[in-house]
């Protein structure tokens, strides 16, 4: 089990940040991904592997409208 | 048309080009008012970078007022009457080759007159077909 934006998500062997974004339908472009408190640059999202128990925050920036 | 081309390896940093440019354009000797800029390479002292417009024209469509245009001789030029000094062109030049000065309302950019090349003692800048 991992946490994504404070909600539980099933962990799957080998899942990457990109997989999480797709699963959550996080299509917005102005996001910052933070895994266990560390910012993961955009160009690593497709390769970065999530570990079981990780705490992932996908911070959407726009304050909108 | 002929534009200013550079061979930075020949540049000795004397700055004569900048003085000549500002004198031609604004009747003062002030490198801050020059459309060509010579900068010492911070990592390699004694070697220089020369920045000057290559008249690629990318700044023409970003200008809201049609001040930025291609003149009949092929040079990319600013029409001072139309220009409102918004500096979009400055921010959108891929070569960072447009400059600003608080005393001058319009951005400062090369008009391909060649004044700078005529005073360069080393041949680091010269006029050549685009």
């Amino acid at each position, binding site marked *: 089990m991992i946490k994504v934006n404070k909600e539980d998500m099933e962990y799957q062997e080998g899942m990457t940040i990109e997989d999480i974004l797709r699963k959550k339908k996080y299509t917005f472009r102005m996001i*910052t991904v933070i895994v266990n408190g560390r910012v993961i640059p955009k160009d690593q999202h497709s390769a970065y592997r999530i570990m079981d128990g990780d705490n992932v925050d996908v911070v959407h920036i726009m*304050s909108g409208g | 048309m002929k534009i200013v081309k550079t061979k930075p390896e020949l540049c000795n940093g004397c700055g004569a080009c900048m003085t000549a440019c500002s004198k031609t354009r604004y009747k003062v000797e002030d490198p801050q008012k020059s459309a060509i800029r010579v900068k010492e390479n911070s990592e390699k002292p004694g070697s220089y970078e020369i920045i000057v417009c290559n008249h690629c024209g990318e700044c023409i469509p970003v*200008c*809201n007022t049609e001040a930025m245009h291609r003149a009949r001789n092929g040079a990319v030029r600013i029409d001072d009457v139309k220009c409102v000094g918004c500096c*979009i062109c400055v921010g959108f030049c891929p070569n960072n080759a447009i400059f600003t000065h608080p005393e001058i309302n319009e951005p400062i950019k090369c008009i391909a007159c060649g004044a700078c090349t005529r005073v360069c003692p080393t041949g680091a800048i010269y006029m050549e077909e685009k």
Partner: protein
Amino acid sequence: MDLLEMKKAHKLLARMDYELGKVEKGYTNRTLYINLSDNTIKTKPVTEQMKEIFIGGRGFGLWYLWNAITEKTKWSDPENEIIISTGPIGGITQYPGAGKSLVVTLSPTTGSVMDNNTGGYFGPLLKFAGWDALEIQGKAEKDVIIYIDGNSGYVTIEEAPLEAVDSHLAAEQFTAMYADSEEDKRNVAVVSSGRGAENTLIGLLNFSFYDVKRGVPRMKQAARGGTGTVFRDKKIKAIIVKYSGVKGDTNGPADKQKIIDAGLRLHREIYELDKVQNRMREVGTAHLTEIMNDYDLLPVMNFQYGSHQDAVKLSSDVFKEYFTQGLPDGCWYGCSMACAKAVDNFELKTGPYKGQKVCVDAAEYETVAGVGANCAIFDPEYVIEANFYCDTYGMDIISTATSMAFVMECYERGIINKEITGGLEIKFGNKDAALELIHQMGNGYGFGKIVGQGVRRMKKIFAEEYGADPNLLNDIGMEVKGLECSQYVSKESLAQQGGYALANKGPQHDEAWLIFMDMVNKQIPTFEDKAQALFYFPLFRTWFGLNGLCKLPWNDIEPADNGLTDEPAKVPEHVRNYVDIFNGVTGKNITKEDIILQSERVYNFQRIFNLRMGYGTRKYDIPPYRFMGPVTKEEYESRAERYDNQLKELGYDIEGKTVEEKIKMLREYREDQYQKLCDAVYKRRGWTPDGVPTLETVKRLGIHFPDVVELISKHQ
């Protein structure tokens, strides 16, 4: 008819010659007052106190209106005013989004004070012509125009019987009439409205800017709350200002270099990053449609649902094909964000201009989401057509869309029928009926006459005259304070419910848009967190309206390393830019905390203004239940898993319960949450539990004018 003939038909009613002013540090230090009842034109000085407390823009508008009216004034009374002002920063050319005009008036739909923030060249050119604000009181007998010549130095009021009222024509005619040549056209800015503003309560104002590349005047809208209806009620056909000679220093900045530096940082950022971020330069705000659909926030069928499988038909990729690409679409000089997209050579299929080819200022997110998704019509050409007509008729497209969506739901639920609609089968998805309704509204006949009064009045009419259940109407009629809601679904974000319903003028997202922070990022879990967000963001955004700024370049682009800062949602580097440009213009030395303080004064003043007009307490801050949660069975079922889980987590026993029972449980909980949110927000804002600024707050802010103190003392 040719322009000469039109001009010849003008009858001069009044003229004032004036000495040309000079803008010093963002101010001309005087404003222009016009009374159309007795044709007075005069100058008023701007005091230091006005600048200190109200800054400019919306602040000046509120102050003038406060002094012009009484608590009994109605929107159509002659003492009501329309005030237009940019603000000290407005008119600089070097920083994106610095040419906004702020419009303040008493609203026909809310009965209280309304503010709008719009693009176009009017506000800056007005200032450069010598005036920090234009204040119009009184009512003319026949259609008039006001003309301000900022190069020759005179103002006239003229009867103008022949020019068009509809904006796309009016803007073109007046621009051509007052420009000396094609080159001169960009120096003319026109404010106009349209026939729909006469026939509905949701009239808007169009602010023109001449597009030199397209060779047509384009328009931006001061749309909300019936401002155009007031304008036409005063019998104003157009206000025209002319000023040639805009330069980088026309705004008289104290430190120009500071502004240039900030501007260049942002231009460069937009140049490098917009293409990988929001693509504002390509598609403007239309990129939001697919995003909102993906996050279940796109209003569908009168805000019942948050997404729809056909939303792809309205995605930005579709609109990109219609928008002419590669043009510098800024609504004021220097805006490299360039979001003001347009569709060229659009052939109209309906209405009085059928068959003509026009340039349409289309389509922003609110339009696509409103007349499109919210009415379940997923057809881009219909959206563009509706956009054109709402604008040229002078009708607020947000209110039109939300009203239409409401009517469609009422029709589908059998609350109204064909007899009442005059034969219109106004169902979700029926684009012909929707366009017909827009024409009826604009031209003031048939069922359109009812719809044009907006959701609040329709609720009353449907209940009183057609025997509809008022509770259901109140739950599904998406208005607060009398203003129709803009196009985001706030159901799953408590903070946004507050962002909408607590907003001073009514539910418009320009005060606060907190859905991502709250619902997606879960950054503000507690009431205190939400209250802090509802303290900071509405104030921060208010500041744009004091200074003549656009909100978009603040957070629709962000520096590459913004995510690494302490508070990414605030975009700290851009806040620094704003501090720099304010100081660069005014020569003052404010900090980022002062931004909030400046806004807090005006924001509280506006809240008190609402109180003065008979509103401004807690009971006016409560939204219809659809803002908060599912009203109907279908809505509940569309998100059953989410709602069931929420109830379970809260400890409700939902085993064997019907949907209706579950709706009731959820409702009890959510309505209670909303009240608690109000408690927290009022406390954070320094207000009483009934939502009135305390004496202490008012004193701290320095807005304790005698009449303010007297008024709020009754509510402490």
